[in-house]
């Protein structure tokens, strides 16, 4: 049982116009096995939260804490965080020319586990997971995310989630740009990871449709850099009907 705890997190970025505060005191606690949906208007800071948890250098943490079972996550480098069990499925996965998927996956697995996976078994494991995600085997020989369609990039993110077996995963709009079948396939991947390793999930989304496949235990409404309301599944349905007007007027 693990706990990822975010307390009063304040984050800003440097822009041409000067320092811009984005997160203004975020509180969030996720336990192993918990599935937390985060919904909120464009620009409210959801990706900022995701990147800050992963440690992207662009974001300055001005206050607050992130801890993983009491360990100070903010003191860790990006790769240390990943090795500690944090995973970010990115909204826009990055292309890496000349580095094949096979090489990348093996290198990442070796880094996370601290030892190289057994050659035979590993190839088989990768193939099985690619099958389940309906990814053609030819992807192994292709360069990371290069020329992948939007949906293929998202499947590739979930493939990594399943292979690297983190303790907590932040999924930043993994459902965006997926067709109906792909949405189901990707959701099944997340659910497998959840079941097999008691994964804790932070699921950032704009749509309730994915919540039909991935059942959230908590729903958080994210507005203007903080959590404006929390509830269960029903909150998501209400947001779908009413939108964010209520929060935006309250704030004004």
């Amino acid at each position: 049982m693990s706990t990822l705890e975010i307390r009063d997190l304040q984050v800003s970025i440097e822009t041409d116009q000067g320092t811009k505060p984005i997160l203004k005191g975020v509180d969030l606690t996720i336990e192993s096995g918990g599935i937390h949906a985060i919904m909120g208007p464009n620009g409210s800071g959801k990706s900022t939260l995701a990147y800050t948890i992963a440690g992207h250098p662009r974001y300055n943490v001005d206050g607050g804490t992130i801890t993983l079972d009491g360990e100070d996550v903010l003191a860790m480098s990006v790769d240390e965080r990943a090795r500690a069990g944090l995973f970010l499925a990115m909204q826009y996965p990055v292309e890496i020319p000349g580095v094949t998927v096979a090489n990348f996956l093996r290198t990442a697995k070796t880094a996370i586990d601290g030892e190289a996976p057994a050659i035979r078994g590993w190839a088989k494991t990768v193939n099985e997971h690619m099958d389940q995600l309906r990814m053609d085997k030819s992807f192994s020989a292709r360069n990371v995310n290069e020329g992948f369609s939007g949906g293929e990039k998202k499947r590739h993110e979930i493939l990594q989630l399943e292979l690297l077996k983190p303790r907590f995963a932040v999924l930043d709009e993994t459902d965006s740009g997926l067709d109906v079948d792909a949405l189901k396939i990707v959701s099944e991947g997340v659910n497998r990871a959840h079941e097999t390793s008691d994964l804790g999930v932070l699921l950032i989304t704009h749509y309730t449709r994915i919540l039909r496949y991935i059942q959230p235990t908590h729903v958080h409404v994210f507005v203007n850099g903080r959590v404006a309301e929390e509830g269960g599944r029903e909150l998501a349905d209400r947001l779908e009907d009413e939108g964010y007007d209520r929060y935006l007027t309250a704030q004004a």
Partner: protein
Amino acid sequence: MTLVDTAPSTPGSAAPIQTRSERPTSFDPADFGTPSGREVNWKLSDTARLAPLFADEETSGAVEYDLSALEAAGVLVTGDDAARGEIFRPEDLPSAIAWKRSETGLHVRIPAGEVLSEPLIARLRGLGAGLHGNDHIVIEALPDSVATVVLDHSGTAALAQNVEIIVRDRATLTVITVQQWEDDAVHAAAHQAVVGERATLKHIVVSFGGGVVRVNPSVRLAGQGSETALYGLAFSDAGQHLESQVYLFHEGQDTKGDVLYKGALQGQGARTVWIGDVLIGPDATGTDSYEKNQNLVLTDGTRADSIPNLEIETGDIAGAGHASATGRFDDEQLFYLQARGITEETARRLVVAGFLMEIVQRIGIPELEERLAADIEAELARGAGLAPASKAGA
């Protein structure tokens, strides 16, 4: 990779390409003055270290040739049959000296219709840092043949080299020159090629080792429907000067050119120079041409000059473009890899190796690809202790 775009790093840019195509040629070294470093084709070169190649003197024994693979394949021709100068015209002093003083008269001829799947590897080993060598090599692919010829350089010497490449109609020829010299080698090579009707030349320059290496390929797409891919890969360490002046002339109709040169630089004084001139001639309707040079700066204290030129003399082309980018690491790529648990150092190595592997992946000879991949790893290991390029220095 998303590299930071920068303006060509040399003020005044290069001379117009027309001047390039009208550049004086001569077989007599006396017609060329000793380069001072101010001439258009020398101004980014290390003329001081290239000076041994400016001496018009009798030479022998600087380079040992292992031609066993070519002999076994029966592709060497000798005697009166081994004509040279059909298309080659020396454009600078070392080239004229290499013509005059050529030692081997090596002539490779792929018979008509012959399809050779095994690469023909000629091994050239320099036998001493002070030794001056000169050579003129002819590589000729007769109609409908398919072959790959590799010039593999190691050891050390001061070598002036001409490579005359003739791709007859419908032939497919790959020429790869690998410079894996020791640190004190000096090498100036002039490659000149003509490509016939519906023929294809793939030309790849790989420079890892050597003090000063200047390999200048010049390709004329003469035949209708001819194609060329001109690729280059340079990994410049402290004190190395690796240079390529590429000239691609679209002369015939419906020709296709793809130029891609990549460089990585690490360590104090590491230098690369790339000048890419593409000329689309007045009769070259239907031309499709693209050239690009990308350089990745791994540490401070390096310099990459990159000058693309494109000149179009006909209105009716299929497409033409050029690009040049020199920059440091892409932070987003490093972040992505590190977010998967990969340490920063390993992530850097993966990104650089990947950047360069894009060229290696186009070679198409597994054994050579593997060796070059290992060479890239070795180069990266050499740079392991160096501080990464600072952001401001990009």
